[in-house]
């Protein structure tokens, strides 16, 4: 695996975030290099999503620093939108623009933010929609397609901005089980193409097979991080063991056949 890269694209330094008196993130140090696929796992309420939302500035950190390509992102106001255009986000609840068609969802960003012309933006959007298998649905409105289809469109919408990093916030958690696969397949392709991805997920098989690094979060801190084989096969932290044991119990019977079908990892 070619994990040896030396330019951290996202760096998080002593990040803390409280909502009122509740501290959700209690000092996170974390960095992601170009081409990495980092999966963030952990039980609900451990701060995974908040970390992701802080990275995209949807939440303002209480203290600490976030750097993108070496420069701080949480200073000055006008740069928030410029920065966000470089960091894509895929949401658990898809959040497709309900008033726009599938195609318009994918062209509005490039047109409004990058100032592209419509024909150019449309061509790019159609290509991306073809990539996620949604090119036939360009005329549909979001409420007319299924959850899995919505999420694939949402991924195409994020890609249309040509982001340098793509954040996924539990992209399959709101989906029916039979639709999870189609979304994961798209994400797998993207990882294969070398896109830098940070994925908050409960899909352990995906984390194990696709990621270059796994981060386990517990109670607002990173309890353990490392290569997927280390985390899944030889976890050193007690909480990681507990968490994984619970998942193995619940999930493994369902996960195992899927693992085999997807082919063995290196």
């Amino acid at each position, binding site marked *: 695996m070619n994990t040896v890269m030396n330019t951290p694209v996202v760096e998080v330094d002593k990040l803390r975030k409280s909502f009122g008196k509740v501290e959700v993130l209690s000092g996170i140090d974390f960095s992601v290099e170009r081409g990495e696929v980092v999966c963030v796992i952990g039980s609900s309420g451990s701060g995974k999503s908040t970390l992701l939302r802080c990275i995209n500035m949807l939440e303002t950190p209480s203290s600490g620093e976030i750097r993108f390509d070496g420069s701080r992102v949480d200073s000055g106001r006008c740069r928030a939108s410029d920065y966000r255009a470089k960091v894509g986000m895929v949401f658990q609840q898809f*959040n497709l623009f309900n*008033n726009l068609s599938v195609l318009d969802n994918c062209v509005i960003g490039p047109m409004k933010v990058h100032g592209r012309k419509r024909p150019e933006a449309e061509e790019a959007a159609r290509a991306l929609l073809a990539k996620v298998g949604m090119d036939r649905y360009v005329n*549909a409105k979001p409420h007319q397609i299924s959850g899995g289809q919505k999420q694939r469109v949402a991924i195409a919408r994020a890609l249309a*901005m040509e982001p340098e990093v793509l954040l996924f916030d539990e992209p399959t958690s709101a989906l029916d089980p039979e639709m999870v696969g189609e979304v994961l397949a798209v994400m797998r392709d993207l990882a294969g193409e070398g896109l830098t991805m940070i994925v908050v997920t409960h899909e352990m098989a995906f984390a194990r097979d696709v990621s270059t690094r796994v981060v386990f979060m517990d109670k607002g801190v990173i309890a353990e991080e490392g290569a997927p084989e280390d985390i899944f096969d030889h976890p050193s932290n007690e909480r990681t063991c507990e968490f994984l044991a619970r998942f193995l119990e619940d999930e493994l019977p369902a996960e195992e056949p899927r693992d085999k079908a997807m082919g063995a990892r290196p």
Partner: protein
Amino acid sequence: MSAAAALPSTFWGWVLYLARTNWSMFLSGAGVTVVLAVLGTLAGCVIGFLVGMVQGIPYPAMTRSVGGIALRAVKAVLAAYVEVFRGTPMIVQATVIYYGSKQMFGVDMSAFVAGFVVVSINTGAYMAESVRGGIDSVDRGQTEAAKAIGMTHFQTMVSIVLPQAFRNIMPQVGNNLIINIKDTSVLNVISVSELFFTSKSLAGTYYQYFPTYLITCVIYFVMTFACSRLLRWYERKLDGPTSFELADGAADGEKARVKVPGRTSRALELLNGKDNSKRRAMR
């Protein structure tokens, strides 16, 4: 003598007589009413959208800066406007604005212009609150998604939030239009020649109150009913078609129309909990 003989002696006779001889009066009164109500509602919507939008600008981005303080001041003024114009009767506002502008500022507005101003400002105050509610009713995820692809607050509002908010408050716009058709009648205090004012002069001329106002009643109802039907039609138009066309499939070249549940069955589906993602969007 001959004039008296020509006048009807029964109630329905009077109704027919008034309708036949004075239809143009009723019609012009109704015309003024409709024009005032429609223009006033439109202008009120514009005011309401502007006020509602400003009220919706979040603080945290710009606290303690000059912009932040200015925003706070503007918001306070707008809040006062809404409270004052919702909190006083339109009939009083009409007299205050019509006579007040003349006495205090020497502005000699025609009664019609004064009427238009009063209806617009009054509707604006109500619409501001509706718009605020309409903006709140749009799922927060829509704003977050727009921000996440780098859109500014203004772009997010114009392209994503307001179109959805507008659809959600269409029933309120309709309400306001219908209320305005009826409530322009209070403008008779400043002698705007709308339907009620013309009816009053007709009734006084013939000393026939009941027959005159019965006709007035019918005209008002026809106008409001027509408006409510028109608005329903427009709402359905905003919702768009219930089916969509699949683009040409690469493999089979088949072209299909896909039928999907319309708004009502969609609502049922949501209520049954089939799709949690959209539940917040339902009001």
